[in-house]
């Protein structure tokens, strides 16, 4: 794709022949595509080599895109590509709201992954703070953790393990593929910079009195 001769830079006008109209069209196409804002004809003329016929090239480009999935539209004095109006419905499904998992949730998840099967009390011991019910619920709902067997200790507390969906999401074959502490250190992850907002995160914890209360998945 590199075999096309490089046209002259715009900075040296007049020294080179004017590019053919089809080439001017390509140039405008690339500029409009890559620009974050609509681009005015004047700006296009400035960026193209001297002697280009921006209006003519734009007209060609516009008709080339007529009826396509994207169309060339005029926005005031400027030009931009937009999704064809009849395909607007295609864009709708796109919007899944990306949320970052809370620090409490990601830490709880990490503990389950590294220590499974693990009880809630054990999670709290490792984190050094209570684990809110919402955190566990969220991870259950995401289908990243599930209830494992009950621990055969007094109170028979439930344990948590990670799910297939978890392994799938994080691209792991098995939970044993998680890097160990030594590797984390070698990869420079142990001296991680404090995350933004890390300090406030503790505040979200609430207490939890429902340890081992769910008989749901008892086997």
């Amino acid at each position, binding site marked *: 794709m590199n075999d096309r001769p490089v046209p002259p830079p715009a900075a040296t006008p007049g020294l080179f022949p004017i590019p053919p109209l089809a080439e001017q069209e390509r140039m405008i196409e690339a500029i409009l595509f890559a620009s974050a804002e609509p681009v005015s004809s004047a700006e296009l003329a400035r960026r193209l080599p001297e002697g280009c016929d921006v209006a003519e090239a734009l007209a060609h480009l516009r008709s080339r895109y007529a009826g396509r999935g994207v169309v060339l539209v005029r926005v005031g004095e400027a030009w931009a590509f937009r999704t064809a109006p009849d395909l607007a419905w295609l864009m*709708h499904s796109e*919007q899944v*709201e990306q949320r970052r*998992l809370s620090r409490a949730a990601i830490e709880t998840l990490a503990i389950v992954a590294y220590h499974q099967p693990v009880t809630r009390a054990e999670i709290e011991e490792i984190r050094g703070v209570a684990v809110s019910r919402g955190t566990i619920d969220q991870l259950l709902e995401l289908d990243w953790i599930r209830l494992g067997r009950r621990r055969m200790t007094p109170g028979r507390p439930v344990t948590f393990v990670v799910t297939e969906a978890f392994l799938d999401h994080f691209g792991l074959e098995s939970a044993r593929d*998680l890097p160990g502490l030594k590797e984390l250190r070698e990869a420079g992850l142990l001296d991680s910079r404090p995350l933004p907002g890390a300090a406030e995160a503790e505040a979200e914890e609430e207490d939890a009195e429902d340890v081992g209360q769910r008989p749901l998945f008892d086997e």
Partner: protein
Amino acid sequence: MVAQDAQEPGDGAAPAMAERLAGEALIVDVDGFEGPLDLLLTLARRQKVDLRRIPVLQLAEQYLRFIEAVRALRIELAADYLVMAAWLAYLKSRLLLPPDPAEDGPSAEDMAAHLAFQLERLEAMREAAARLMARDRLGRDIFARGAPEVVTVARSKQYSATLLDLMQAYARLRTRDDFRPYAFDRSDVFPMEAALERLRDMLGHQGDWAELAHYLPPGWRGAGKRRRSAMASTFAASLELAKQGRVELRQAETFAPIRLRPRRPGGQDNGHGGGDGGGAA
């Protein structure tokens, strides 16, 4: 030293001056090398031969000479340069001596071939890296849509976390466990207050010059940490007492034992005491 190389018979026809300049540039740049293999590769490139046909013996000699030259300049070398030097010296001796039939393990030729392979492979990766970086790159030569259209309608929330997040979270938890407030292990520390007290007491019964070590408490006179700690605090205590004008210190020469004696009340101004004290400081 490098200029001599150029005059050696059979050693390339490069002009001595250029060679010397190159040699000096190398020496100045010693910090710029990324390890012994990098240094070897640079030396090999100066031979202007196909890496596959590199004369390993000659290369080993060059490396060893280079290391010597650098050490003569008292430039500190990282240990792996020295390890490589030792290995090359060994390889060189193996290459020069007739093979010992009693010795098993890889032959000197195998070892030399492996070194040549390593150099060739490193060079190949360098070139590959350069070619990679010279490609048309996103954001520099090729561009993505500048105004992506994100239409927000569907309400599904998706929680995202990467493996990196997960590992960092876990690492954070575990390092928190490792953390404990810094606390000094005091069982092997002889505090200066104790030394001061001991010295004051003992000086009352002491008339003449005695070595500092003489004042160490019993149980702290052996070797190792306890002795070092006691010696340090006793020395510090002696300085304190000297400052207060209660003892005199002397030391015959640098690193000689430090000796002290109580200063006589209303005592004589004894000039050499002060001078020797300066030596001890």
